């Protein structure tokens, strides 16, 4: 009993230190999808503005989303309201994004302005990275990652910095993007149920497999871009995609 008490005090006072460069202190994040979380897409209702009879503007009254989706969006930053729209909170105000980019991107748009790629996009500290920077993590090359529909995606061993985040702090701190698969999703290779060689949710595990390198030469960057494109094409040609499954083939 006394020993347990001592150990618990020891553990309470222990503070997990981030990994040392060049090992990534990794966590993962995702884009909640209303279809997966609430079992339905939301569309809202188009309502005529009553401001003035000369005002032809119509506006949308958004549907009340399910509580779980709302809380997950608050936690993650944004979520999929329907296949064409992204639902975001800014200071508790709902912002709906529905531009060309959003409509053509089944995940979400990162701060880089690019469509976020499952297992490829990462959020990093803007103090050290430009959006669009490429990172190599050789130990992940060739690893089979599960897609939302259960099929496999062969990882090219490269990541692209597509996003920033207030809590992503430090040169070796990365937040890995897992599409619309949450931490507990059985198919999320970065999550709790992922393989030991691919999980990324625990920032305190500083293993050699998380060694990374920032690509600086034009040649290396081009090689990385080609490898990423090839991995995506291979996954797509197997009738699967690295994009969230429920969105595929759904047109409003």
């Amino acid at each position: 009993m006394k020993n347990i008490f001592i150990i618990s005090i020891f553990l309470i006072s222990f503070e997990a230190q981030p990994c040392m460069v060049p090992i990534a202190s990794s966590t993962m994040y995702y884009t909640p999808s209303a279809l997966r979380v609430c079992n339905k897409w939301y569309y809202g209702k188009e309502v005529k503005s009553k401001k003035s009879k000369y005002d032809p503007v119509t506006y949308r009254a958004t549907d009340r989303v399910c509580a779980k989706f709302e809380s997950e969006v608050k936690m993650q930053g944004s979520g999929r309201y329907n296949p064409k729209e992204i639902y975001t909170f800014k200071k508790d105000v709902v912002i709906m994004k529905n531009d060309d980019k959003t409509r053509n991107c089944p995940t979400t748009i990162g701060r880089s302005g690019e469509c976020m790629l499952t297992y490829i996009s990462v959020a990093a500290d803007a103090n050290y990275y430009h959006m669009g920077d490429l990172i190599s993590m050789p130990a992940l090359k060739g690893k089979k990652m599960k897609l939302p529909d259960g099929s496999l995606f062969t990882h090219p061993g490269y990541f692209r910095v597509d996003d920033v985040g207030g809590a992503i702090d430090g040169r070796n701190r990365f937040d890995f993007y897992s599409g619309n698969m949450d931490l507990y999703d059985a198919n999320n290779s970065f999550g709790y149920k992922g393989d030991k060689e691919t999980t990324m949710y625990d920032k305190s595990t500083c293993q050699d497999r998380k060694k990374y390198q920032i690509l600086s030469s034009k040649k290396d960057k081009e090689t990385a871009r080609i490898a990423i494109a090839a991995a995506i094409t291979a996954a797509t040609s197997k009738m699967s995609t690295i994009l969230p499954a429920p969105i595929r083939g759904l047109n409003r």
Partner: protein
Amino acid sequence: MKLNLKNWSVILLLGCLPLSAAEKTKSKVKAVPDLDRVWTFSFEELNMLDENEKSEYAQSLVQAVSKNKVLGQFKEATSEKDFKTILVSEEKWTAFEKKMNQQCQDKKNYSDCDKVARLRVDLLNKYSTRK
């Protein structure tokens, strides 16, 4: 189970050791900050900003430059109108970026340049959909 004074001191000692170790590490990190950082946007990054964001950046950079002697070396950013012509030209921007890296990184003007580096980071974080 009986806990006497001796046992309590052992418990307290064990409890405090990792805390002090963590504090030491923290202070070490603060003493030697990682200064090899990004000082401004790359041209690619600049192009992903919308007009309002570019305008906000230009305005705040010009303001920061006018208030600081070291940053005052960036003559290109003394007027918002002139600076906006740099924002749209890759050649001019690359030259400005290079100058900023020299002034901030090579000449070790870290604390002065921190202000302009922060403008970029704050802008990126402000309009990010990620928390």
